[in-house]
Each structure stands twice: as C-alpha cells, then as structure tokens.
C-alpha cells in the first residue's frame, strides 16, 4: 500500500500533458509514431487513434506525464514526422477530455453486488453485464475519475480491465 501512496504523490507532482495531432490516415503511421517514442525515450501514458471529420486524416491523442522541456521536444519531434500534419498541446482548462474503461470485478455475495451497483451509479457508470460471479462496469470520464473508481473497487477483486486512453477536443 505504501508503494501506491508514493506513486500517487509522485503522479500529482508530474503534470499530465494532452497532445492532439492530426496524422495521415494510411498504413504505417502509428508504427512511425510509436517507434519515435521508443527511439527517443519518451514515456507515454496513453495513445488513441481514430477517424475524424476528414476521411484522409486521423486524430491521435497522446497523454504523457512529463516536464515541459520533454514535452516541447516530443512536440517538435512529432512535427518532424512527415505523416504528422499538426500537433498541439491542449490547455487542460479549455479542453474536454474523456476516457472509457471496462472493469470486470468479482461479485458473488448479493450485498456486495448492490454495493458495486450503488458505487457505479454515483460515478455515473453503467453496469453492462452481470454473471454469476462477476459484474462488468463501463465508466467514462477523465483519467482521474476512472482512477478513483478503480481504487474504490480494487478490493472486490478486479478480474479484467480495459482502458481506451484519452480522447480530447478543445472547448468552444
């Protein structure tokens, strides 16, 4: 438990940056970008890629916990890639960002099942599946919110979890 606390306090010190980029929608682009992260020792928290309103461009959202100088280098190195058309560091105050998580946890006793369902509703999470011995919950929100819910339910026993990573767009 101490390790987790230390980790959490460390996390609070290192700010989370959200980068939004438009990249060519063609084979090999994701490879080029992830290879850059590896080759230049950048640490990435999450990366999501998906289609945009433009059929030939994909939006890639990258989150990283890092210092300003490293993020500056990351942005410049990304801009250097031919397939990367645009990169911006989003201002978190003026950005809507969300992540989706699917969490399957152990839930055998009925009171525990009720407890989980209550927590889920407080967090505006949806119960997607209930089986004999487990419950599968879908939760959407900022990574902090998902962390909070995860920490809350960890002691029930998380069987499987899948997080999508952050998607983001500027407000206004």
């Amino acid at each position, binding site marked *: 438990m101490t390790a987790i606390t230390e980790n959490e306090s460390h996390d609070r010190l290192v700010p989370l940056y959200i980068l939004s980029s438009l990249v060519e929608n063609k084979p090999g682009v994701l490879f080029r970008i992830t290879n850059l992260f590896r080759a230049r020792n950048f640490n990435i928290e999450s990366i999501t890629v998906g289609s945009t309103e433009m059929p030939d461009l994909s939006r890639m959202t990258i989150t990283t916990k890092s210092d300003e100088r490293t993020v500056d*280098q990351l942005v410049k190195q990304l801009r250097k890639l031919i397939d990367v058309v645009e990169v911006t560091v989003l201002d978190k105050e003026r950005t809507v960002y969300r992540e989706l998580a699917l969490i399957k946890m152990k839930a055998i006793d009925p009171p525990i099942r009720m407890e989980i369902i209550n927590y889920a509703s407080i967090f505006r999470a949806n119960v997607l599946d209930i089986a004999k011995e487990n419950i599968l919950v879908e939760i959407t929100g900022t990574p902090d919110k998902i962390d909070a819910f995860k920490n809350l339910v960890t002691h029930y026993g998380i069987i499987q979890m899948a997080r999508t990573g952050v998607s983001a767009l500027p407000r206004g």
Partner: protein
Amino acid sequence: MEMNGARALLAALEKDGVDIVFGLPGGANLPIYDALVDSGLRHILVRHEQSAAHMADGFARIKRKVGVCFATSGPGATNLITGIATAYADSSPVLAVTGQVALAMIGKDAFQETDIIGVANPCTKYAFQPRTAAEIPEMVKKAIYISESGRPGPVLVDIPKDVQQATEDIHFPELVKVRGYNPVLDADFSQIGRTVELLMNSERPIIMAGGGVILSGAFSELQALAELLLIPVVTTFKGKGAFPENHPLAMGPIGMHGHAEANKIIVEADCILAVGARFSDRSVGRFDEFGKGMNIIHMDIDPAEIGKNKLVDVAVVGDVKASLKTLVKMLSKQVIARDKDNSWLRRRKELIDYYSESIKDYTRDLTAKKALKKLREILPSEAITTTEVGQCQMWASLHFDVISPGTFFSSTGLGTMGFGFPASIGAKAARPTVPVVDIAGDGSFNMTENSLAVSVLDNLPVIVFLMNNYMLGMVAQWQRTFYNRRYMGVHQNSCPDYSKIAEAYGAQGIKAQSIEELDKAIRSGLKSDVATVIDITIDPEEDVYPFVAPGTGLKDMITGA
C-alpha cells in the same frame, strides 16, 4: 504515357536531374536493371551495397543534391542500412531505391524478403512503398524533395517487383506537395534582432560553426560575419572546413579530439553563436557544463534541435545562409568599431602560440602529424578530402587544414568505419576535375577496400592515404588509456599487404616509410589515372591528443604527449 514501373522510376529520376546511380542488382530489382540498359543514367556497379550508399552519400555531400543508390530486396537492402544510417546521422541527401518481393508475397516470409520500410524507419526522413506503377513518379519526386530540402537526409523507396513490371499509364507531376512537411527556410527577423543585441554587448564572442553551414553553403556569409565583428571561429568536427582553417580568425574544430586552443577558447567566451550545429556529445562534452554562464545563440534549420541537448538564450530557426545574411545586413547598419588589437583577439593568439609549442610531436621521422602536414603542403586547396573512422580521422581533424570551404567531409555522426573510401569515389564522381583523397587507417580501409574495383573499372581514381599502424588504433589507444594496456581484438598483424591488394585490383600501390618516399608517392598519386593506395607505416603507439575523456567537459581536456 504507357510504360512499366521500372522505366517510370528511371524517367522520374532523370527528370529530377539524376544522372548517376550506385548499385548492385539482384532478383527483386531485375526489372530496374533491365530498364537501365536503355536509360541515359550512368550506373556504377559496386561490390557491396554498403559502399553504394556511401558513394551516393559522398556524391551528395559534394554536389549538394541527392545521391542515388540501388539494391535488391532482403540482404541487398539491409546491406544499404549502415550507409543510410550514416547519411541520416550527417544529414546527407541520399535516395535509396530497393527492390521488394511481389505484393502478394509480402508478409509471407518470401525468399529475400525483409520489411525494409520498418528497418529503415529510424534512420530515414521517410520511406515510401508504391503499390502501383502509376504512383512511382510522384513518390520519387516527393522522395527527392524531402531528401534535399530543409535539413537534408536519406529517403528510401521500396518497390515490389510486380510493381516494377506492371505497365500502366504513367504521368510525371511538375510539382509535389507534402502537407505534413513544411521546412522553415526564411530568416526569423525578431530573433536575429536579439542576436545582434547579444553579439554587440559581448566582450568575448565566439562562433561555433557546424555542418549546417556546409549543407546550406553559407561560407561567404559566415566569413563576412566573422570579419565584420572580428569574432574567432571554432567549428564542430562536422563543420570542419565551413571556415578556411588558415584564416586569421580560425581556431579549428572543438570536441573530444578538438584543437586544444579551440577547446580552451570556447570555455572562456561570454557569448556563443552556434550556427548549424547540434551540440553533440562529441563536440561539447558534458551538456550541463558546456556554455555555463554564457549567452548561447542557436541558429538551425531544424526546430527539434533547439533545446534538444542544450537550452539556449536565443533560437533562430531557419536556413542558416538566410539567417546569416540577414544578421550581417542588420549588423552593417550599426556603428562597429572593433579594435583589431583587443584583449580577446590577443587571447586567441596567446592560446594558439601556447599550444603549438606545448603539444610536442613524436620524434620519429614519419608520424601521422608529419604525414598529414606533407599531404597539405602538396595537395591543391581545391582538392577534396574525406576520412575513414578512428585515429586517422581525428589526426585529419587536428593536422590537416581545410582551406577551401566545403572540400572536406567525414562520417562524423555515426562514425562508420569503411565510409571514407567509397565516399571518396562518390565525391570523385561528383567533381571529377579535382583530386580526391581518403585519409585512411588500415582497420577502416579494410572494411570496404573492394571498392578498388569500382575506382579502377569506372575510372574514378582517388588517393587512399593509408596511415598504417597495423592496429585498430583508436580502440588500442582507449585500451592503453583506460584499460591498462590490456589489448584485445586490436591487432591486424600486418595482414593484408595493402600495396599488393591495390595491385591485385589494377590500382597503384606504393609503400612509404619516410617523408621523402611519402612526398614522391603523393605526387605519383596525383598524376595517376588509377587509384593509388599509399601505405604509410606509422608507429602503433602514436596517440591522438588532445583528448576530452567521455563524460567530462571541454575544460578537462588532456593535452597528453
């Protein structure tokens, strides 16, 4: 126009001004070689693909335009990689065209199949793989544009065999646009304004010229700036020859094996103007110590170089030729009364005099230093010199002054042994009218000496100035210095006999064991119409000094000897 992919490739190259390619055929690029029979391109057949990439690189560095190499799929393509990585580390515009197995076979682990796009990714600016013949002209044009523009670098085009063979209606675009690629070329006026301020207010300014000056051909602009403000000029090793080394303001290269006076003066400066340099560890030593307490101005075409290794006070992003031109123009409007006898220039002179006396030469008749001084004495200033990698390279940096800007290059970033000889052949192809010399060591020359066949058969005579200590000398020096003389894996045991090797290829081989013999050999090499290998016996114990040990700062330089 109806034609197959292979013909479309060659026509696209010719339309962009390519007239020579270095390569080796194989199964997956046979259609390209078939098309070469009818094309106007000059093909230079190499004996190993690595050399093809180095030749294209040497050609590109002298022509300052793209150098092209061909290889087949699989091992042919992977053999190119060392040369491509070399070009990438030194920002040289090389275009590599590889054959690939047929589209339907990709991913089936076919014979001689390699995912060369994946392999080449970290050491190219970009890699293309056309899926139809009709795409080839546009991709080739984009490849050349990307390779030559901005900060230059290698680009790969990997063409599946069936795409080479497919006959389609082919169009050649006049212009191409790559939307994710917009190199900054213009001078940044506001930042240059700040540069003027810092330079005018500094008492001990220094210019540190890097390879970017050579790449953009900003020689006269650099010289105008230095002369206007009377600023001493040091270079990085990549920037060697960006500024005439016999100029009264020249100080030579800094770095691990830099000139002592250059390493010394740069730590005493109060303002550094770094032009087209990237603050590499080999040049500046420890990043945190370098430039401490000084104002640093950084001019570079690549925005990602700003702040990568060193945080700076002013960053001028753009082509350094344009930036320097603007800087000189802005400065000439100011009243500048620099005293030719100021204390900073006196300090420069003092350092040069001090080190020229305190660093003594070995007493033997023939040393690397004496040999290189002799070479400089005889070679015309417009001759091109390149080097192999190791002690020979660092001796060249220390003891061979480049007088005519842009006539020297070396594998400075990747440090590729075997680079110099094939690169010198490429340089000869780019500028056949001047003598080309590869300043070599035995270990490095041994790696690509089979290019002698190319030099002889394709009439590209160069001089291999082989300083032979029968050792992998630089490694031996480190083993002497850091490993208590516990030698391992460094002895070449006088094998082979390099003058006989030269003769076996139909080249001229001359042994030189005294300064007189060396003098004659160089003159003979300059007159020869085949390659000349001058096998110069030097002392295996001759070390390269000064030396800034890895992980230390320039101020910790050991002057040795």
